[in-house]
C-alpha cells in the first residue's frame, strides 16, 4: 500500500478546497427541535427525496443481487417497521416522519438508520 501512487507525499496548499479532489460544498439546513419529531426533517427531505430514494434503491439492487427472489427486501419491508416501534423516542417518530415525507417504505428508512449495526455482519 505504501507504494506510490496509492500513498502519496503529504499534500500541501489544498485549502481552500478546489481541484479534482473537491466535488462541492455542503449546504446548510436548520432542524427545529421545537417541532414535533415527526415534522422536524420534512423541509430537508422535501429537497433531498430523490437522492434518498436513489441511494436506497442502490442498496435494494445489491440485496437483490444476493437474494434474487427479493425475499430479503420483503423481510425488510415486513419486519423492520415493527422494529421502528421499539426504537427510543424521538428517533422512532423522526424516522416515521422521514418515511412519510419521502414516500420511502418505513422498513427501508429504518434499515438506513440502523445500518451501522447491520453492516457489522
Amino acid at each position, binding site marked *: *500500500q*505504501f507504494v506510490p*501512487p*496509492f*500513498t*502519496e*507525499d*503529504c*499534500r*500541501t*496548499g*489544498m*485549502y481552500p*478546497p478546489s481541484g479534482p*479532489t*473537491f*466535488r*462541492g*460544498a*455542503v*449546504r*446548510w*439546513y*436548520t*432542524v*427545529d*427541535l*421545537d417541532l414535533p419529531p415527526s415534522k422536524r*426533517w420534512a423541509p*430537508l*427531505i422535501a429537497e*433531498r427525496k430523490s*437522492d*434518498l430514494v*436513489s*441511494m436506497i434503491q*442502490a*442498496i435494494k*439492487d*445489491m440485496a437483490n*443481487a444476493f437474494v434474487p427472489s427479493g425475499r430479503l427486501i420483503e423481510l425488510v419491508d415486513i419486519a423492520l417497521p415493527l*422494529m421502528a416501534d*421499539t*426504537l*427510543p423516542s424521538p*428517533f422512532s417518530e*423522526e*424516522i416515521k416522519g*422521514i418515511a412519510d415525507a419521502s414516500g*420511502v417504505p418505513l422498513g427501508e*428508512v429504518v434499515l*438506513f*438508520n*440502523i445500518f*451501522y*449495526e*447491520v*453492516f*457489522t*455482519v
Partner: protein
Amino acid sequence: CTSVVAEDSKGNLLHGRNLDFGLFLGWDVKNKSWTISEKLKPLVVNLDFKKNNQTVFKSTNFAGYVGMLTGIKPHMFTLTMNERFSLDGGYIGILEWILGQRDGMWMSFLTRTVLEKANSYEEAKKLLAETKLLAPAYFILGGNQTGQGCIITRSRTLSIDVLEIDPKLDRWYVLETNYDHWKEPFFLDDRRTPAMRCMNQTTQTNISVSTLYDMLSTKPMLNKLTTYTTLMQVSEGKLESYIRDCPNPCMPW
C-alpha cells in the same frame, strides 16, 4: 474513516475527519468507484439543530439519517465516530434487541443524545465511555481546553481504552482510523502510518484548519470510500464540510 483531534501551539483544539463508507457494497467497474459511496455524496448536508431559535449543536449528516456521525456543540466539544470491527459486533446487539433485551443504545442515537444533552467535554466523555452499545465503535472527542482530546475505544459493553492528548508527552494530537491504537493496523489498510507522518511533518506550530485539510486530502487518507471531509474549530463554534472525490489512481479504501 480518519478522525483527528489536534491542539495547536496556542492551545486551540481542532477536529477533522474523513467519512469513508460503502466498502464491498457494490463496485462500479466503469467509473472505478463504490456504488453506495457515490450514492451517499448527494445526501451530505450540514445541519444546524435549533431550540428556541438558538443553536444547540451542528452536524454533518446524510439526509434521512437521524443519528450523528460528525458534530460540534459550539464552544463546548466536538465529536466524530469511526467504525470498529469486532466479532462481538452489532448483529449480536440486534439479536438481543429483537429478543427483548433493550438496555443498550444504537450507536448513532447515543452520539445524537450526547450532542443534544451533554453540556461539557467531561459529561460527553462519561456518556460515550459508559453507555452500553449495540455495536463496538471508536468515539473521537475534542474539548475546549488544553489537553481535552481523546479516542474512546468501545466494545458493546465496555470502554476498552481512552487515549488522551498529553502535551507533557508531546502528544499534541490523537488520530484514529479503524483499528485499536495499541495494535498494528491491517497491513492492506494502514492509513494510520501515512496520516501520522503528515501530522508530524506539519508540526504543532503549523497545525491549522488548512494543514488539517491537507492531511485529509492526502492518499490513502483520501480514498474511493471518502464521501466528505469535515473540519471543526470548537472555540469558534465553526463546522465546515466538503464533498470529496479521489481521482485515479486511488486506493479503493
